[in-house]
């Protein structure tokens, strides 16, 4: 390696001589940049500048560019800098750097923060409106595809539907059983603990029965499915869109809605009521077990009270909601999936949006159902 300074400037009368030497490569770029800046910043009321590069042993694009930058820095001061002593090996490199960075892209104008905030809010509101329209349009398309398929049942793709039911339904059973069992048990424990204070322990059964069957089971299952299956739908459809697989389908005359969306929606709509039933039974089991072991209420009494506390309609209220919630989860997941753009980041963003929106809409829907059932006295 050559000893001596990397960059060194001396004044000879009215001319400046800058001498460069050693290794001018990427590994030393940080050091070189500072040196170049320091030399370029020197006050120089000179008539001529000579950049002597004969001492440079190794040069790459970083070094070549920094020499070019130095030359341009002097050029701005209206003196033409000469590069002398260039090793012919490096000619092409210096030449290509000399030609580069001539046309900078226009700098993007800085935006006013407040205006940007207002604009962002406006965009979000418009986006919400568009969401709603898009969802409705999508539902219509899916319904049209379903109607078409009804006329030609072969297009229903039973294998795809069964496969999806297996994934979103059967595959979710263990986790659904587990969480509903635990929630049922926890609610029962809390009920026993607090109701005991005023001797109303037996009402724990009413509470569990009504709470689980009307609300808890279906909500837990919906949230679980939004997180488990909705996100998977969005990610699958999104990455297919990203890799132009959906375009490939379209040009083959396959309708992605029919092939990809319909089986998924049907699977969710079929699986969710079943999962809700399983979840409700599991939660009641958990509650009954805690009532027995912690509250000292025998299973016979629990079942007797349960029979008195709930009616068929309590049970129906929970199950009726399930397919509608499933439809909302599935629709949101698919719409978000088809919104994925080219980048991995947008896939992540859309998947998050899918889960968040689905859970939010499920709760809104639950509220609407509560009003509806109150109105029809169920």
């Amino acid at each position: 390696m050559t000893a001596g300074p990397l960059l060194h400037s001396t004044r000879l009368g009215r001319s400046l001589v800058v001498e460069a030497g050693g290794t001018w490569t990427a590994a030393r770029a940080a050091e070189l940049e500072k040196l170049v800046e320091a030399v370029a910043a020197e006050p120089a009321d000179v008539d001529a500048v000579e950049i002597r590069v004969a001492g440079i042993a190794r040069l790459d694009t970083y070094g070549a560019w920094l020499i070019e930058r130095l030359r341009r820095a002097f050029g701005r001061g209206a003196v033409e800098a000469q590069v002398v002593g260039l090793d012919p090996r490096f000619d092409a490199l210096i030449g290509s750097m000399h030609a580069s960075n001539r046309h900078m892209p226009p700098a993007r104008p800085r935006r006013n923060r407040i205006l940007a905030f207002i604009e962002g809010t406006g965009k979000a509101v418009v986006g919400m409106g568009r969401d709603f329209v898009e969802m409705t349009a999508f539902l219509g398309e899916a319904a049209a595809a379903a109607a078409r398929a009804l006329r030609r049942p072969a297009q229903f793709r039973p294998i795809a539907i069964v496969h999806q039911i297996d994934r979103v339904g059967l595959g979710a059973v263990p986790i659904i059983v587990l969480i509903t069992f635990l929630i049922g048990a926890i609610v029962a424990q809390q009920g026993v603990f607090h109701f005991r204070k005023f001797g109303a322990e037996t009402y724990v059964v009413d509470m569990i029965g009504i709470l689980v069957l009307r609300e808890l089971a279906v909500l837990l299952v919906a949230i679980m499915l939004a997180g488990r299956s909705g996100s998977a739908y969005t990610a699958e459809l999104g990455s297919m869109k990203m890799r132009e697989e959906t375009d490939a389908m379209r040009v083959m005359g396959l309708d992605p809605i029919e092939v990809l969306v319909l089986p998924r929606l049907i699977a969710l709509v079929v699986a969710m009521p079943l999962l809700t039933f399983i979840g409700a039974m599991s939660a009641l089991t958990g509650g009954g077990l805690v009532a027995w072991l912690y509250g000292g209420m025998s299973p016979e009494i629990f079942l007797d009270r349960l029979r008195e506390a709930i009616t068929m309609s309590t049970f129906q209220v929970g199950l009726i909601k399930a397919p509608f919630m499933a439809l909302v989860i599935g629709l949101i997941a698919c719409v978000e999936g088809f919104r994925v753009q080219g980048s991995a980041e947008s896939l992540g963003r859309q998947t998050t949006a899918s889960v968040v929106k689905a859970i939010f809409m499920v709760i809104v829907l639950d509220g609407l159902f509560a009003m509806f059932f109150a109105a029809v006295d169920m």
Partner: protein
Amino acid sequence: MRGSNETVIRVRGLEVGFGETLVLKGVDLDVWRGEILGFVGTSGGGKSVLMRTILGLLPKRSGLVEVCGIELGSCSRAQHRRLEQRWGVLFQNGALFSSLTVKQNIQVPIREYLKVSQQLMDEIAFAKLEMVGLSVDAADKFPSELSGGMVKRAALARALALDPDILFLDEPTSGLDPIRATEFDELITTLQRTLGLTVFMVTHDLDSLHDSCDRIAALADGRIIAEGPIETMLASEHPWLKAYFRGKRARAAGIA
């Protein structure tokens, strides 16, 4: 011949397979410092697999792979990192980071390894873009907004970001128009001459093989069947090589 006799990449008895099938069945290959090695073989023959194995992305069943005298797999983390700074890789499908703009893509390795100012990073990124023949307007585009050939060139600019010693190129000229492809060949030759690059280039482009490659290695049936300058390939009597280098396309390219 431009290559010296120092081997940069040494592969001995390399076997790589997936499940039951063995894709590479004992590959021996040397790449010398400062040369451009063209690597040919049937489509699906295992060229990309070999490249990925050399880079340490695929596990090998047996054999030896050394890059700059360092055996991948048994070297320390620090050695591996140093090696990663010294090579640049152009994957067959570009493999640009989809959530970063072209400029940010080029700056990823710079940011990771060099402590230089943002201004210098920008200038270097623009210089690299111009080197590969992309206009600076492409700098702020995302990969999904580029054409196939632009992706190739942006990926090459990223591979060149650190001015590596070794350049791995997987079919760099496929998807480029003939003018761009020729420019590309010239660019590689220029870089090789000025920076002393060693280039491992998988290619099907007969013009590239003819004009810029110092040596060619041919892979068939999981083995290297021939190695040497283009004259060796042309003289070979192996049926596949004959069809490859003396077929209709080769005649059209003016090689045979």
